[in-house]
């Protein structure tokens, strides 16, 4: 009976918070939910399987493009001229389009325009390797996405998508990840849906995946349509998801289940 009423009270509390439309209490990284062995795997660069993507990304970063330049030609060997604090601000407002652009999209744009290469597919292995390499340069930096001013309307649109019911199961991201983090869905502990570790190595997939792939995996489990990678909608969602995790430390490449 005591268990019964505890659950009812916490469900009631969560329902109240749901009306406010955001995370109740402190933001926390999915890292805190990991077993010690998985934490150890993430923390040791020699054991972390995501580091292979960092190495691959580093190679691509210094590979000459069709225009006889590489990323490193402008951004320095190993990206040493890139500002980790700037990397931690993505998605940022694109000066040309006046819309939010994700880190991966920015890299893909440069890859095609500055280097003259054939475009890489969003969320493809090479695209993720480059993003993982660049994001890893900002590991330990605090996520610091602009969510006010010119970004505010985009942030709100992203939140609406995050809270939009979809699929035959008629679920929305916030219903689990805002309202029930740390609670068990069958054997799985629900996270807060934070993105500070992305791109990350997902043990269940045996590969590095990006934020947008992870969203599509959730869409699949609620029997919703898959959304196209690199879409405007996904950029808005990534803006909201990164922004709601402002203050968390970047862990790329994180290791998760």
């Amino acid at each position: 009976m005591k268990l019964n009423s505890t659950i009812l009270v916490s469900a009631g509390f969560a329902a109240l918070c749901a009306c406010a439309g955001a995370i109740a209490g402190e933001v926390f990284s999915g890292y805190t939910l990991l077993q010690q062995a998985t934490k150890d795997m993430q923390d040791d660069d020699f054991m972390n399987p995501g580091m292979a993507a960092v190495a691959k990304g580093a190679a691509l970063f210094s590979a000459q493009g069709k225009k006889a330049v590489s990323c490193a030609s402008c951004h320095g060997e190993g990206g040493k001229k890139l500002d980790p604090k700037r990397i931690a601000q993505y998605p940022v407002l694109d000066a040309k389009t006046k819309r939010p652009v994700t880190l991966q999209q920015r890299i893909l744009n440069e890859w095609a325009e500055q280097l003259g290469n054939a475009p890489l597919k969003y969320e493809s292995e090479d695209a993720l390797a480059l993003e993982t390499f660049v994001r890893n340069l900002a590991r330990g930096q605090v996520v610091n996405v602009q969510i006010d001013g010119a970004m505010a309307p985009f942030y709100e649109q992203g939140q609406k998508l995050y809270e939009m019911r979809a699929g035959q199961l008629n679920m929305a991201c916030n219903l689990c990840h805002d309202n029930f983090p740390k609670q068990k869905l069958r054997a799985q502990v629900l996270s807060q849906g934070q993105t500070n570790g992305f791109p990350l190595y997902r043990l269940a997939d045996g590969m590095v995946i990006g934020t947008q792939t992870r969203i599509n995996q959730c869409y699949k489990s609620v029997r919703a349509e898959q959304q196209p990678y690199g879409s405007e909608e996904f950029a808005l969602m990534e803006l909201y998801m990164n922004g709601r995790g402002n203050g968390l430390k970047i862990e790329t490449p994180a290791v998760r289940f």
Partner: protein
Amino acid sequence: MRRKLLLLSTAVCAGLPLSALSDDKPVETYQPWAAKNKTIQEPLGGLKGDAARGRKLAIDGGKGNCLACHIMPVPEEEFHGEIGPPLTKIGKRFDEAKLRMRIVNIQTIIPDSLMPPFYKNPAELNRVAEKYKGRTILTAQEVEDVVAYLMTLK
């Protein structure tokens, strides 16, 4: 009929559970229901539920999947979820009409609930994957089976 038999035998040969075939069944015509005071009094389609089938559906991860969120008197399965209230004595707490409403679409009672609506009008769902378009999560018969099972939990 012949095609159906062929499908069936193929599935048996491949060692697939019969439930894997369920998505290939023709789409059942959605039968509208009427809610009254947070209840649905009449069984969907006038069908009679079977508690033993209902128990299997409640456990099945691709059907009721109740264990994802609820503790249930199903000792042979591990890792019961803890998001929703335990269903151990749910048949004592609610009568059949109230249980039916909650399974069909609990969001008519608790708008923020994350529990899937198992028999909502498919035309009112958003962005459903092609494979599941026009279908409810459970059929009318399956809803009645689950109701019959939950009524035994006292």
